[in-house]
């Protein structure tokens, strides 16, 4: 007699979990980022002190770097996050040995080479969908901490400043942030403008904000 009740509870819970995901996706649609603008380097030319100008540009770049669209896949733990509310990823996936998921449940089990919008809010996609390595964890960190981390070749994948600029301006998975598909809020500006801003920061001494 007990089993049907258990089955019903589990069935209801599973349905609620699936519906919950769909509903959250819709709620996200109404959440519009108030500041979709990203200033280019020209907006900072009036700051005469180079260090201050550099810091100001990194703070502007922080609108992109600290956006949930980017931070969600730079987790401190082994689990990505999703949505503007940065909730834990559903299903509960883990990074696995190469940041592309666990054996039997890799990122590409669900994520296609491009965004798929056919079902609900769809599934975001990119040919190289994966998590940033642990050393590049950004979640919960201040912009100053992230800035120092980005410049640290022991933690940034061994990239020098030219490679970092290329990564920010050209990498297609970084670029996904501006083309997230579905009802997802994109990161501010364009990848081109972000690349220019990041390059200008790098060429002005790559100074980090104080906090």
């Amino acid at each position, binding site marked *: 007699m007990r089993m049907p009740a258990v089955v019903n509870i589990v069935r209801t819970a599973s349905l609620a979990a699936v519906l919950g995901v769909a509903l959250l996706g819709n709620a996200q649609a109404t959440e519009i980022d108030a500041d979709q603008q990203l200033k280019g380097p020209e907006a900072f030319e009036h700051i005469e002190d180079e260090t201050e100008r550099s810091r100001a540009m990194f703070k502007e770049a922080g609108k992109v770097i600290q956006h949930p669209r980017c931070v969600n896949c730079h987790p401190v733990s082994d689990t990505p996050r999703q949505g503007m509310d940065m909730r834990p990823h559903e299903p509960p996936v883990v990074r696995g040995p190469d940041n592309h998921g666990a054996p039997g449940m890799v990122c590409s089990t669900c994520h296609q080479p491009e965004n*798929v919008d056919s079902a609900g809010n769809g599934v975001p996609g990119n040919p190289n969908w994966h998590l940033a390595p642990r050393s590049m964890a950004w979640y919960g960190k201040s912009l100053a901490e992230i800035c120092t981390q980005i410049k640290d070749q022991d933690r940034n994948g061994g990239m020098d400043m030219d490679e970092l600029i290329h990564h920010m301006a050209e990498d297609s998975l970084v670029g996904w942030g501006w083309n997230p598909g579905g009802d997802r809020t994109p990161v501010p500006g364009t990848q081109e403008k972000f690349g220019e801003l990041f390059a200008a920061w790098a060429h002005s001494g790559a100074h980090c904000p104080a906090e």
Partner: protein
Amino acid sequence: MKITVNGSSHEIDAPDDMPLLWAIRDRLKLTGTKYGCGVAQCGACTVMVDGQPKRSCVTPLKFAAGHDITTIEGMDGAEFEAIQTAWRAIDVPQCGFCQSGQVMTATALLKEKPAPSDTDIDNALAGNICRCATYVRIRQAVRDAADTLEA
């Protein structure tokens, strides 16, 4: 679009963004692969694409064309047979709806990790929901299958 399923080539007259699952179930009548949630949250629609598990409900046909697709009906090999035997031995399924997806994922896991830990099993099968909550038997059967392969 031309897709290869279980070794046979099929011409499917459909938009290239149609989910692979629709082609498998509705056009090819291979109904072992199940439609569960339709949004890659439950795992019932799992098939193999070039030997890797894929949720066919969110795989557009254009990304399946040119690849080897295997459904539950076309599975074979030592890992699959070990899984099948272990599943039968302890009667893993209850209603059975999710089980083809569970078996696909479990087989993919054993192909990559012949001696998985409980954590490996949980991580691999985290995306395969079972509304009858047969999780304890699923995990046991994967362990049993791994033991068989090792022996």
